[in-house]
C-alpha cells in the first residue's frame, strides 16, 4: 500500500478545497488535494453560465473560468493533486489522522496527516426527500444532474420540461433547457416567494416567458415507463378560493428542491453536525468538533455565491496554518441565532480577533436591520436594504467592536434581523 504523509490534506477539489489548499501551501506546509472526479473545479465545471466572481475578482466570469484561476494557482504552487481518488472512512488517531483513498489510477493510497480540511461540497435533495406522490417512471432528474448531463456530457434529458423548485439551479436550467431547444412549461415553487436570486428570476424566466407558479406544488406524477404529466396544485387549496389545480403534459421533471451538505465521511470521523445547516459545528477557526479537522464551502453550509465560498475557505486555510504552527485559539464563546435567523456561522467567536460571520435569514423583508448582541448588549446595528432566505448575509466583527468581557460569563453572541 502506498503511504502518503502531509501536514494537511484537503478532501474535495472544488472552489472551497482549492482556496484552502493554496493558503496552506503559501505558508510553506506540505499539502495535497484529493478529488474523486477527473478534474479540479467541483460543481463550477458544470456551471457554464456567467455571474461568478463579481465580489472576489470584481468581474463576471463563468463557472469554469472562475475555477480555472484557482486550478492555475494550485499548479503554480506545486500542490500534490490526486484526481480520480475517492476518500472513504477517516480515522482520527489523536494528533495524526489517517484515511484511505480509492483510485483506479493510484491503487489504494493510505494518507496520514496532521490536519484535514473537509471540502466535499453538497448533494441535491431528491424526490424521496420531498415525497411527491405518484408513479416512479424515468424522466425525473435533479436539476444539478440534468445540468451536468447537458453541459458536460451533452445529453438532453427530455423534450417537455417542468421544473420543481425555484432555486438557482432550477432557474438556470429553465433557461439552459430552452436554449437547447426543449420546451419548459413552467417552474413550480411551494413558497410565496422565489428561492433563487432575483437576477436569475429575471434573466432565466421573465426574459423567456417561462411561467413561475408561486405557492404551488406538484401534487402528482403519472406515466408508467416515462413521465407523462404532472398535476400542479395550489398550496392549502381550502383557502385557495378560486385557484384550481391544473395538469401539465410533460416528459421530464427537474427537481431543484435544495442542497444538503454531503457529510457522510465527516460523520464517520466523529464530527458533530448542526441540524440547521446539515454541516459541521465549527468554532471561530472553522475547526469541527474533532481536533485538527476543519470544514469550509458547501460541505459546511450551502452557499449561494462562490465568492463567499472562496472567502470562507481562504480563512479556513489560514486557520489550518495557525493550527499547524501550534497557535492556540485563546478565548472562544458561543454564537446563537436570534430573531428571523435560521443559522449563523461559525458557532463560536473569538473576542481577541477579527471575526467574520455568515447567516441565513428566515424572512423576506425590505429595510431590515441586523442586530448583534453579546450578553444582551448591542454591539452592532446595521441597515440591510433587502433580506430573503435565498441570499446569505455576511458581516465582520472586529476586535475593537467587542467590549471587554468577563470570563465568568457566557458571553454568548446573538444575531437577529429586525
Amino acid at each position: 500500500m502506498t503511504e502518503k504523509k502531509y501536514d494537511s490534506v484537503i478532501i474535495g477539489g472544488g472552489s472551497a478545497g482549492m482556496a484552502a489548499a493554496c493558503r496552506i501551501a503559501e505558508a510553506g506546509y506540505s499539502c495535497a488535494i484529493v478529488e474523486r472526479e477527473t478534474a479540479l473545479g467541483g460543481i463550477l465545471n458544470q456551471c457554464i453560465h456567467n455571474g461568478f466572481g463579481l465580489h472576489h475578482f470584481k468581474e463576471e466570469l463563468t463557472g469554469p473560468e472562475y475555477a480555472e484561476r484557482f486550478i492555475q494557482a494550485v499548479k503554480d504552487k506545486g500542490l500534490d493533486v490526486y484526481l480520480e481518488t475517492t476518500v472513504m472512512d477517516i480515522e482520527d488517531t489523536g494528533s495524526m489522522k489517517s484515511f484511505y483513498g480509492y483510485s483506479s489510477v493510484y491503487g489504494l493510497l493510505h494518507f496520514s496527516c496532521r490536519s484535514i480540511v473537509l471540502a466535499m461540497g453538497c448533494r441535491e435533495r431528491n424526490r424521496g426527500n420531498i415525497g411527491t406522490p405518484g408513479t416512479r417512471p424515468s424522466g425525473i432528474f435533479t436539476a444539478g444532474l440534468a445540468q451536468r448531463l447537458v453541459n458536460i456530457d451533452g445529453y438532453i434529458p427530455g423534450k417537455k420540461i417542468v421544473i420543481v423548485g425555484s432555486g438557482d439551479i432550477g432557474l438556470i436550467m429553465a433557461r439552459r433547457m430552452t436554449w437547447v431547444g426543449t420546451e419548459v412549461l413552467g417552474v413550480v415553487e411551494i413558497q410565496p416567494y422565489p428561492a433563487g436570486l432575483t437576477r436569475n428570476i429575471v434573466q432565466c424566466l421573465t426574459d423567456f416567458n417561462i411561467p413561475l407558479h408561486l405557492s404551488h406544488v406538484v401534487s402528482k406524477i403519472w406515466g408508467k415507463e416515462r413521465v407523462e404529466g404532472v398535476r400542479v396544485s395550489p398550496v392549502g387549496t381550502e383557502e385557495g378560493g378560486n385557484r384550481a389545480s391544473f395538469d401539465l403534459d410533460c416528459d421530464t421533471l427537474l427537481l431543484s428542491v435544495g442542497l444538503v451538505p454531503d457529510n457522510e465521511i465527516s460523520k464517520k470521523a466523529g464530527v458533530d453536525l448542526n441540524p440547521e445547516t446539515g454541516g459541521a459545528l465549527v468554532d471561530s477557526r472553522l475547526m469541527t468538533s474533532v481536533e485538527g479537522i476543519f470544514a469550509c464551502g458547501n460541505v459546511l453550509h450551502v452557499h449561494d455565491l462562490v465568492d463567499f465560498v472562496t472567502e470562507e475557505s481562504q480563512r479556513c486555510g489560514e486557520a489550518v496554518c495557525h493550527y499547524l504552527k501550534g497557535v492556540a485559539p485563546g478565548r472562544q464563546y458561543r454564537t446563537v441565532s436570534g430573531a428571523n435567523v435560521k443559522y449563523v456561522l461559525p458557532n463560536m467567536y473569538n473576542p481577541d480577533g477579527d471575526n467574520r460571520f455568515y447567516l441565513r435569514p428566515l424572512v423576506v423583508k425590505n429595510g431590515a436591520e441586523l442586530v448583534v448582541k453579546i450578553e444582551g448588549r448591542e454591539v452592532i446595528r446595521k441597515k440591510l436594504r433587502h433580506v430573503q432566505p435565498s441570499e446569505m448575509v455576511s458581516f465582520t466583527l472586529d476586535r475593537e467592536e467587542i467590549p471587554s468581557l468577563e470570563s465568568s460569563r457566557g458571553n454568548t453572541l446573538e444575531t437577529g434581523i429586525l
Partner: protein
Amino acid sequence: MSSVYDVAIIGAGVTGASIARRLSAYKLRVVLLEKECDVSFGVSKANSGIIHGGFHHGASTLKSRLEIQGNIMFDALQRDLHFPFRRCGILVAALSFEEMKTVEKLYMQGVQNGSIGIELCNRERMLSLEPKLNRDVVGGLHAPSGGIVEPYRLVFSLVESAVKNGVELKTKFKVNGVDITGERFHISSVNGETVTSRYAVNAAGLRADEISKLFKAEEFTISPRKGEEYLMDRNAAAFTSRVIFPVPSPNSKGMLVIPTVEGTTMVGPTAEEIEDKEDLATTGDNFEKVFYSARRLVPSVSERDIITAFVGLRPALEGNDFYIAISTKCPKLVQAAGIQSPGLTAAPAIGEYVKDLLKKAGLILEEKPNYDPAIDPLPRIREVDPFTAEKLIEKNPSYGNIVCRCESISEAEIVEAIKKGHTTLDGIKFYTRAQMGRCQGGFCTYKILKIIQRETGLSVDEITKRGAGSWEITGRVGEFQIFSRTGGKE
C-alpha cells in the same frame, strides 16, 4: 427445429426462479420466460424482504407449511448463492392487554407450526430486545428464526445459478398465446417468438389468471392488493435490531418497521384492494398512515429520513392461500398462483413442491451428475477490508473507481452487473445498489450511462431505466446546431 423443452416456466419472479433453479439439478431442458427486460421486475422487487417466522398463519394453510419449510432452507441457500440475508429475528409488539390476547394466539399458532425458538415476552423482555420500542408496549412475541433478505439479489442469484446449470432465460418474452397440440405446448410471445415444451409452470404473479386462461385451465381471479413502503436513510435513528410488527388485524399483518439487510430502515406496507394491476402510484394519504402507525411502534421513526418510496402489488387470490397444484383441466400444467406474502419466504419450498408436482404429473427426474449448486461470490468493495481492497484493485483497477459514493460501489461491480445481463439503470441498481442510497443517483447516473454505453455498445438514447418506453436521454446537445453552423458557414 426439434427444440422441445421439457419445462417452460412463465414468470421470473422469486417463484419462477426458485422452480427453475430446483429443476436445474436434473437432466431437463428448462426455459424461463419473462415479459420484462430483466428478472425480478415484478412483485419480487417491491416487498418487505422479510423471511417470516411461521406464526402468522394457521397450520391448515398451504402457505403456512411452505413458509416454515422455506424459512429453514435459507441458510443453505445463502451459503451457495451469497445474497444478503440475516436472521435478525422478529418482534410483535402489543400495546394493550387486548392486543396481548391476539399475541398469545399467534404464539400458540407458531408453536403448532413448529416456529423454532418462538417466545412469548413480557414488557421488560420486549424492551431489552429492542430499546427503541414504544415504552407503552405491554408485551409481545419474539420469533428468532425470522430474518431479512434483499429480495432482488435473491432472485438474481437463483436465476444465475439456474442458468449456470443449463436453464435458458428468455427476457422480453411476454406470453400471449398458447397452442396445445397433442402432448406439446406451443407458447408464443407478443414479439412472435414461440417455444415448445412438454410441461409448463404458471408463475406469472399478478398475471397468473390470464396465463391460466391461455392454457384453457382453471378460471380464477388475481386481485391486486397494493402495499406502499417508505425507505429511510442508513443513518435513521429508527434503525432497530429486529423486524417490528404490530399486532395483526384479521386481514393484514399491519405496517412494520424493518431494518433492511443493507442497513437502511423501511416502514410499511399498506394494504389496499385495487383494480388496476399496473397502479404503482404512491399517495399522500397513505404516507400519513404509514408514518402514524410506524411511530406507534418505534417513536423515533421520522419522515425527515425518507429517501424514497415504492409500491408493490400482492397477487391475491380469493381465500388468500397459495394455489399450487397440477391443473385438473390441463394436466401437464402446474399452477403456482396467489403467491402473496409469505411468497418470498416460501419460495425455496415452492421450488421443491412444484418439482414434486411435476414428477407426479409424469415428468421424469434424473439427477445431473455435474450439478453445481454454488455460484461465485462477487467481491464488493464496501464489504472488504483495505488489504483485500488493495489486492482487488491491483488485479482489476476499476475496483478503485468508486462510482456510487453513497453506497460505495465500484466500477468493477457495475461492469459485472452488465456482464450478467443487467443492462438497464434499474437492473444495475438492484444488482449493485448503485443509485440506491441517499442521493438516489444524483451523483452517479451520468457515470453509469457512460459505463453501459462502453460495455454494451448501446447509444445513450437506447439506454432505459427498466425497459421499453422508460428512456432517459432524448438526444445530444448541438445536433441541430451543427446543422445550422455548417449551413451558415459553408
